[in-house]
C-alpha cells in the first residue's frame, strides 16, 4: 500500500514509531497517588456554598421572586437574583465571535428551558444553601413551549429567545448557513434514482466523572482567583473529564459576582443531577439528505437540510452549525450541491461543544446514506465510496479545490485490514488523479 506522504514531506520521517505504543502520561504519577489537585481539592476559611434555584418550567414568565424565607434559614447569607447582576449578560461567547449575547446570567423576564438559573443562594454550608434554595419562592406564568426544530420554525411558533426575534440564528442576513454549488434541481432531474432520507439524533451528555464547578477567592486589591475546571482555560491541566462539556465557562460568572458581593470565597459545584439536566449536551440534529444517483453509481446531486437544536440559547451552536455546513456534502465530489444548515432555538437545554460537534452526527447521516445508495444500485459500498471520493484538483461544493485527498487510500487500507474484497477497478484508483 502506498501512503501519501507528499503533504507531510517536512513533517514526516520514516522512523516515527509512536502510534500504537503506550507512553507514560506526564501527569500520571499524581493521578495514581491521588495527589493531582482538581479545582475542588482545596478548602478556604469562610467558604460559601452556592446553590442555584432553577426553573421547573420549560418556558415561563417570571412574575415575582420572594427570597425572604430563604434568608431566614440559618447559615444563608445572601440570595442573588437578576437585580443583583449589574451586566446581566453571559458574555463568554462574544470572545470567540459568537454573537449576539443572548443569555442572561440569572433569568429576569422569562425562563426559556427547564433548569435555567433564576436565583443563587449563598450559605455557610452546603446543607444550608440547599435548604435556602428550597425556600425561594418564584411565581411563574407558564408559556407554550416548543421542543421540535421544525415546529419552532413554523409561523406562529412560540418565540423562544427575544434576543434573536426569531427561532433561528441569522448568518450574515441569511436564515441558515448555506452552501450552493452547481444547480441541484437540474442534478436531481437528471438522475436515474432520487432518494431522500431523514436522520435524527438525540442530545448526548458528556457525563464527566467530575462535575462542572469552580471556586472563586477574593485576593487583595480587588483581585480574584478562580479555581475552575473549565476546559476553555485549562485545556491540559487537571480536569476530571471534559469532552467539550466544560467549554462554556458557565458556573464562573455568578460565582465571581457572589465573591465580589460577599468578599468571601464561593464554591459553585454542579450536582450530578445538574450535570445531567443543565450542563450543555451535544446538540440533537435532524438531517434530511436527498440524493440524485446515476445508474452507474455516481452521485449527481445532493440536497441537505440540517437542523441543529441549539436549545434556548446559542452557546457554541451557531459555530457548530457552521461546522456542519462546512462538512457537507461529505468527502465526495458531487457536481450539484445545496446545503441549508439551520441553528434553531427551542425550549430545551442549551447545547454546545462535544467532541467534533457539528460534524459527528452529519458523518453518521452521510455514511448511512452512502450505504443505502450503494445498496439501491447493487454496488459494493466500499467501491461506491471510492468511485465518488474527492480527487486532488476536484472542485468542492465550498468552491475550494481539493488538496491532499486521501479517502481512497484510507478506504483501501481499511478494506485490506477487514479482508473486504475490493472490486478490481478500485485498485487502480487514486486520490491523486481522476481516472479516465
Amino acid at each position, binding site marked *: 500500500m502506498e501512503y501519501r506522504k507528499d503533504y507531510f514531506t517536512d513533517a514526516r520521517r520514516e522512523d516515527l514509531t509512536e502510534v500504537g505504543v503506550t507512553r*507514560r*502520561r506526564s501527569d*500520571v504519577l499524581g493521578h*495514581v497517588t491521588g495527589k493531582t489537585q482538581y479545582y475542588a481539592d482545596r478548602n478556604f476559611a469562610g467558604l460559601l456554598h452556592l446553590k442555584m434555584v432553577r426553573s421547573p418550567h420549560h418556558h415561563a414568565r417570571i412574575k415575582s421572586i420572594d427570597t425572604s424565607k430563604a434568608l431566614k434559614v440559618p447559615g444563608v447569607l445572601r440570595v442573588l437574583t437578576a437585580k443583583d447582576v449589574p451586566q446581566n449578560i453571559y458574555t463568554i461567547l462574544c470572545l470567540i465571535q459568537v454573537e449576539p449575547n443572548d443569555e442572561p446570567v440569572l433569568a429576569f423576564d422569562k425562563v426559556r428551558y427547564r433548569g435555567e438559573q433564576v436565583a443563587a443562594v449563598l450559605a455557610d454550608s452546603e446543607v444550608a444553601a440547599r435548604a435556602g434554595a428550597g425556600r425561594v419562592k418564584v411565581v411563574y406564568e407558564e408559556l407554550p413551549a416548543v421542543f421540535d426544530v421544525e415546529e419552532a420554525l413554523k409561523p406562529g411558533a412560540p418565540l423562544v429567545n427575544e434576543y434573536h426575534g426569531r427561532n433561528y440564528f441569522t448568518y450574515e442576513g441569511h436564515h441558515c448557513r448555506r452552501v450552493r454549488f452547481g444547480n441541484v434541481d437540474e442534478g436531481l432531474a437528471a438522475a436515474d434514482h432520487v432518494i431522500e432520507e431523514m436522520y435524527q439524533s438525540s442530545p448526548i451528555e458528556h*457525563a464527566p466523572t467530575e*462535575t462542572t464547578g469552580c471556586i472563586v477567592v477574593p485576593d487583595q486589591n480587588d483581585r480574584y482567583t478562580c479555581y475552575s475546571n473549565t476546559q476553555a482555560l485549562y485545556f491540559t491541566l487537571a480536569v476530571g*473529564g471534559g469532552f467539550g462539556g466544560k467549554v462554556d465557562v458557565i458556573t464562573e460568572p455568578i460565582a465571581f459576582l457572589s465573591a465580589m458581593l460577599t468578599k468571601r470565597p464561593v464554591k459553585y459545584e454542579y450536582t450530578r443531577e445538574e450535570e445531567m439536566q443543565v450542563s450543555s449536551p451535544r446538540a440533537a440534529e435532524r438531517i434530511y439528505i436527498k440524493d440524485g444517483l446515476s445508474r452507474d453509481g455516481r452521485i449527481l446531486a445532493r440536497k441537505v437540510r440540517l437542523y441543529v437544536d441549539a436549545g434556548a440559547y446559542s452557546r457554541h451552536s451557531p459555530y457548530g452549525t457552521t461546522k456542519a455546513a462546512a462538512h457537507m456534502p461529505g468527502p465526495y465530489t458531487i457536481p450539484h450541491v445545496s446545503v441549508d444548515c439551520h441553528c434553531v432555538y427551542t425550549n430545551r437545554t442549551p447545547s454546545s461543544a462535544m467532541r467534533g460537534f457539528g460534524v459527528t452526527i452529519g458523518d453518521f447521516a452521510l455514511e448511512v446514506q452512502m450505504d443505502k445508495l450503494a445498496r439501491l444500485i447493487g454496488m459494493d459500498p466500499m467501491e461506491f465510496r471510492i468511485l465518488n471520493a474527492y480527487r486532488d484538483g476536484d472542485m468542492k461544493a465550498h468552491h475550494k479545490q481539493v488538496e491532499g485527498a486521501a479517502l481512497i487510500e484510507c478506504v483501501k487500507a481499511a478494506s485490506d485490514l477487514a479482508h473486504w474484497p475490493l472490486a478490481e477497478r478500485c485498485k487502480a484508483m487514486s486520490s491523486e488523479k481522476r481516472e479516465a
Partner: protein
Amino acid sequence: MTKVAVQFTLNDEEQNEFVDSGSTLLAVLRGKLGLYSTKAGCHQGSCGACTVIIDGEPRLSCLTLAQRCTGRMITTIEGLTRDGALHPLQQAFMEGFAAQCGFCTPGMILAAKSLLDRNQSPSRDDVIDAISGNICRCTGYEPIIAAVLAAAEQMRAEMKKSA
C-alpha cells in the same frame, strides 16, 4: 448542629474527630482531614470515585456515615504509598495508560486493591466484577483491567521471590 465523636484508623494512623452528626465519611476525609485524594463524582453512590477500603472491603465513602466508622480500619490511596514506594497497582496503572484525567483513578485502584488482597490470582471476570461499581469516562476499561491483571502477576512474582 450536633457533633459526634468518631475514632478510626486511617492508613495506620489513629484519628479522633468531632464531626457533624450525619456527615459522610467522604465529607470528613475531604473537609476535615484535608485528604482530597478521595473524589466525589455524584454524592449518590453511583460513580465509585469516592471508594475507600473499610476493614478490607471496598466502600462508597459518600454513602457511609462517618459515625458508623468508629473502630474501623480505613485505607485511602495515601495508604498505598508509604515510604515513597508505589504499590504494584499504581505502577501498573502508570505503565499501562490506565488513567487519563485521573478522577476515577484513586477509587478504581482501591477497588482493585481490595480484590487483590482477597484474591491473588483473579481472573479477568473477577477484575471486571471488582471494578464494576467504578465509572471511568475517559480511559476505557480495557487498559484498567489489563493493569490490574498485570499488577496481580507482578505481586505473585514478588511473593515467589521472597518465599
